[in-house]
């Protein structure tokens, strides 16, 4: 059944992404982007990363994309303005995209992941984790562990049954929060500067 679910989400994600590329209307692009990103959130749930999935939904789909649509509305020259791209450019881009795709597929398909895991285990000995991933048996969510890690407390179970503490992400977390504050100020400042066309309130900035 999970194959089916994965297939639905993966197809929706890839199809949405392709539709974004192929659409000419910006608003439709946004719509397909919503489909794609929501499906990615679904993939995250499938990967037992429920907190990341929820974050994806709340911030990406509910925040960022809404912001983008808002931007579309504020900058639309007409309801259906299409900025046509030179077909030659499209062809070149598609060619380059194909090459990059081939490169990516070649890159990850050539890797023996399990062997890599074994090698890492051999190399780092007891430092390797008890399980290759997290939560493999689907025993619950990772929200507490992520919360702990973000507040600087991260524990890992080792193969020999011991638990070790590792440095958490408190510093990056703080940096990101300061970064967000700076972005808040900067974005409001940028968006306020000499508005020529009447728009709505600059509420878009602070909601990031």
């Amino acid at each position, binding site marked *: 059944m999970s194959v089916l679910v994965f297939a639905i989400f993966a197809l929706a994600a890839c199809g949405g992404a392709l539709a974004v590329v192929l659409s000419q209307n910006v608003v439709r692009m946004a719509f397909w982007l919503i489909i794609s990103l929501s499906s990615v959130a679904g993939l995250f749930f499938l990967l037992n990363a429920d907190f990341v999935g929820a974050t994806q939904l709340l911030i990406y789909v509910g925040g960022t994309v809404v912001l983008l649509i808002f931007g579309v509305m504020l900058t639309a020259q007409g309801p259906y303005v299409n900025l046509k791209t030179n077909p030659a450019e499209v062809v070149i881009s598609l060619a380059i995209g194909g*090459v*990059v795709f081939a*490169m990516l597929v070649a890159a990850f398909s050539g890797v023996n992941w399990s062997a890599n895991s074994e090698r890492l285990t051999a190399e780092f000995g007891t430092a390797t984790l008890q399980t290759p991933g997290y939560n493999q048996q689907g025993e619950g969510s990772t929200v507490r562990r992520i919360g702990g890690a973000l507040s600087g407390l991260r524990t890992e179970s080792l193969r020999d049954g011991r638990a070790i503490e590792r440095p958490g992400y408190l510093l990056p977390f703080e940096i990101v929060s300061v970064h967000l504050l700076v972005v808040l100020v900067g974005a409001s400042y940028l968006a306020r500067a000499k508005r020529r066309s009447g728009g709505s309130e600059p509420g878009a900035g602070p909601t990031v």
Partner: protein
Amino acid sequence: MTPNVYTATSTTLKWLLGTAWLLPLAGFVIEIFGGYWGGRKTKTAAWIAVGCIATSFVLSLSALLVWRGATAEIREKQATALAEHDAAHGHGHGGEHGHGEHAHAASDHAHGAADHSHAHTNHVHTDHADFNPLRTTFTGEFYRLARFGSVVVSMDYYIDGLTVLMFTMVTLIATCIHVFATGYMAEELTEHYEDHQVHLSGGRHFHRPGRFYRFFAFLSLFCFAMLGLVLAGNVFQVFIFWELVGVCSFFLIGFYVERKSASTAANKAFIMNRVGDFGFLIGLMVVLTYFGTFQFANTSPDEIGSPGLFQMVRDTHGHMVTEGDGREKVVLLQSGGNTPLHSQDGKQRVIPYWLLIVAGLGVFAGCVGKSAQFPLQTWLPDAMEGPTPVSALVHSATMVAAGVYLVGRFYPMFTPEVLLTIAYVGAITAFIGATIAIVVTDIKRVLAYSTISQLGYMMLALGVGGWMAGLFHLITHAFFKSLMFLCSGSVIYGCHHEQDMTKMGGLRKKMPITAYTMLIGVFAIAGYGLPGLPINFSGFYSKDAIIASALTYVSLNPQHFLLFYIPVVTAGITAFYMFRMWFMTFAGTPRDHHVDEHAHESPLPMVAPLCLLAFLAWFCAFRGEDGGLAHQILSSEPTHVRDGLEHGGILGLSLPSHHQIHEKHATAGWVALFAAGLGSLISYLFYCRRTLDAGTIGRQFWVIRDFLIEKWRFDELYDVMFTRPVHVIGAWCQGFDKRVLDGLIHLASHLTLQTAKFDRAVDERLVDRIVNICGEVTYATGRSLKGIQTGRLRQYVMFIALGVVSLFVLVFAFLPRS
């Protein structure tokens, strides 16, 4: 004296004399600013100046009385002790010099019995400290300017009997001169003063606003400087005021600055003084290097352990403690008592004897300049260009007196060799001055040469060991010389600025007061008096003392016989030219009717000082060496002078003791009186009776006459010795400058120019080319790369993607796969 009494007295004297010293400065400031902003026709400045200096005199007199009151006990004790020792006929010797037998007057100096009988016995001074002048000296500090390590630069005071006496004398004479000047300078009280001696083109005379206030301002400043010099507690301070005195004399001699002769004379005086000051500075350096202090002495009870110069160089018995012989000879420094002075690392502090000589000669060189002694005497007659009150002040109480005063003050530092130098310089100066004065016809110049001559006397006296005689003469001379200068000023004023004696004559009737006061001065300078009489002209006593010292010295050191004969001869010449001047001016009949018609007696402000000074010139030395003036001076006499010196120093010179001088006193007095009488008589014959014609004699001895008129050709000598060589050297230097140095510079500039041209060529052809090529290549590269930099976001994205692919391909192509 208990420390409390010492402190109280010291403070009192400090404030009295300090105020007396600073009052003229305050006067100067008020006058120079007030006068500049105020009117030109008021005598306010003069009254301020007179008020200041008169107040100073009152304060000085109070200080004199205070000093006498405070030290009366000590002086009494000293006198008593002296009497006892005289009675005991002790025998004294000590230190480096053993006293031989020497004679002394049996009579007691202090008690003034005019008994010149004599008893020659040896006696022992049981306690030299009783006669130490430092016991009646008050020293201290006004204000500390700076401190460099152990060297302290401060405004000190050094008050002993001589200081207070000098203060009184200077302020008294200055007061008289100030009062006199209020009358003499009255013609400056105008907005348009016409200077008849400055000729402009077109035959007109120079006009300028009157400078009455400026005259008095500088007069006040002059007094301030001189008083500061006298009060100074250290030799560096002396040097400062020494220079200030020089500057003031420069201002005052050059008072009529528009006159070429006046400005030249001012320059000359100043430059001559600089020559002497150079030696002074050398002396100061030696003193500072070896003694580490400038202070004369530290007598304050709080200052025990930090001795001054006098305390270092001699012990309390007045002996220099020496070691070694010849050039190795050194003087051991004392710590103020009779114990040696040690430096911080425990070594005995010494000064090489020859360096002490150098220091003494250096300081004396300064005195030579200031007091117009033999090699540097030529500035003084030229200084007559200043107004007459200035001349009076300069020649009597202040400037020239400073040199003599310093020699007297610095006396403990002088070795016998230095004293010999001083004596010879003084003798030569006295003779030169006197001889020139014979032929001079300008009334003021006669007095100027007379001053030179008399200063030579004083130096001679100091040099032959007659310390008291020298300074005694300084005081008496100050009175009668200022008197005579003011009299001459009165004459000049009365004769409308006619100074040539050949145009005068018979003025006795027109200006009697001037004439007779002048006559008193002439008698005083000639040294008339009757030995044994208590009331004689002051010059008699002082000159008598000088001749006695010289005679004693010569009798002790026969090879220096000239030091006796020259002053005796000079005494005769002095009487001659002084009477010559008086006869030519006041006696006989008028030679120039124009002058005679306008001649009149001066007004009261000018005459009153004459009378006062005449009185003092006559009576100031009342009772001579037993009188108050001499005792006042004696109280400051350095310890070692009293007992003389036998075969001291390197040259084995002996100095007379008081007893020995007294022994010769009567002889010397008669010799001097005889010489003066002879001189006067010849003068009378020449210029009053006219039995002898001066012109004829002059023509017969024209070589000598011209030589004297040319002032011994000193100016020409200096011209040849210094000025011309300097000109020649200057010309050489100029040629060297023009030919060699300028040539070098031109060559260098030429070479630089050529190098620059070459450099420019290299720059333009090579460097610029390289730079241009770089620029062109860069520019071309930029042009060609411009196409890639399209500013198109989407293109960049493609480039990035391509770059990633290329990197991937590269990595996988060239990295070995593990």
